């Protein structure tokens, strides 16, 4: 069964399109604030129309959880799987999966982007990186 699909909006579509082209992007406002998820107004200064900027793909593992029960049938065959909170070196934070074994995960571990395709959708996952 397919994973639940993201539903890009006019505001968030550049994020999902960039992943399909092999890049993780985030928004940066004229005031300098960098953020995700996509929105029309900067939450720091409320100016509209931030620009998109390519992320280095490097970050750190802030925290993670491991599911032993599937809340959606598409995840039944993936148990036990992790969902992780990663902070990019550029500042924005996002929810993702770490593709390494669950017991290899450690707090504040360095991670790097690993784009993976699920059907027609490109997802921004991460793998553990050398310290």
């Amino acid at each position, binding site marked *: 069964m397919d*994973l*639940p*699909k*993201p*539903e890009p909006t006019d505001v*968030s579509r550049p994020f999902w399109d960039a992943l399909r082209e092999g890049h993780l992007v985030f928004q940066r406002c004229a005031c300098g604030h960098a*953020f*995700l*998820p996509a929105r029309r107004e900067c*939450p720091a200064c409320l100016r509209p129309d931030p620009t998109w900027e390519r992320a280095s793909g490097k970050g750190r593992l*802030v*925290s*993670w*959880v*491991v*599911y*032993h*029960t599937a*809340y*959606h049938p598409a*995840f039944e065959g*993936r148990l*036990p*799987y992790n*969902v992780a*909170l990663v902070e990019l070196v550029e500042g924005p*934070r*996002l*929810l*993702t*999966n770490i593709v390494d074994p669950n017991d290899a995960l450690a*707090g*504040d571990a360095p991670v790097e982007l690993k784009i993976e395709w*699920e059907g027609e*959708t490109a*997802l921004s*996952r991460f793998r553990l990186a050398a310290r």
Partner: protein
Amino acid sequence: MGLSGRYVIGGIGHTAFGKLPGRDTVSMNVEACRNALAEARIEKSVVDAVFVKVPSSAHQFMYGQKVAEALGIAPRMGGAWDQGGAANITLLSFAIMGIEAGQCDVALVCYADNPRTGNRAHFGRPRGDDAAYGWFSTAAGYAMIHRRHAIEYGTRPEDFAAVAIACRKHGAANPQAQLRAAIDLDKYMESPWVVDPLRKDDCALVSDGGAAMVVMSAKRARELGVPEPVPVLGFGHGQTSFELPQRATLTSTEAVRAGGTAFAMAGLQPKDIDVAQLYDCFTITVLMTLEDYGFCRKGEAGAFVADGAIEIGGRLPINTSGGLLSETGMPGLQLVMEGVRQMRGTAALQVPGAKTCLVSNQGGTMHTHATLILGA
């Protein structure tokens, strides 16, 4: 002139907690309000404000007016508030401020929900585009915070267990509790994962039920002959971002601001609190709010709870009727009710001589927080 001590909770009431098949939330609100009015020994004709917490599991349009109509009351002020488990203390605050401003006189604050026999899909729902990564459920957000606290402070499973053990022990002594079963460390450690690192014994019950309280000035309570009014010494609030990843820290709660405001209003410090009812939707919430209220230093809640400090007879007994982990999962107001009983000296597990009680309410995934300090 401050508000501290000038307003009271005049009466409390609730339905049974647990499985109440076939009961709708409006009906449960009416039952709880009827019981609260009876306990305050006042007629509904003196009530001119109805503040309602929306049922989390099934939002309805203009819900406050549905409840007011069912109560046969045309309020001057009120409505329904969507703030998760922090809503009840917030609504009590609104009621007090409304009365102070001359906008109303006597207020009912109530909520009811039926996720146990009704629809609980709300609690396991996917979270937007992040569902593609498998991100589901309320519990997962707390699990993420639980893990981060352990990363930063070395918080051990035994520390989380101590919270569950205390709440379940107190609930076992409460004849009204939904779950009357004490646990020990071995049983906690055998408890199955909900979302690792959260075990089943870290998680609140899921319950049907309703609860209500009557709020008025101390002066009005005397005029109306309310037999056991309990004074409100302080309250405070705090709120943070909707998206969990957008918070600068996962290991601080809005209890910092809510508690700071409430303590300042009451003119009290953490050391002055005799008993506390701390929102225990998950065990991590209790550990973090103990720290954030200043009952212990940051990162030291594990050591604080390890020696029985939060059990009856300890330095700060908490959740003396069992909390959300044992009495009922219904959010928030039952903790206020137990605070009222402790201040009256009528609790099933009474803390001898208790003169102050701090009550903590929290909503969403630590999105919202409200603090109440009651006096005897």
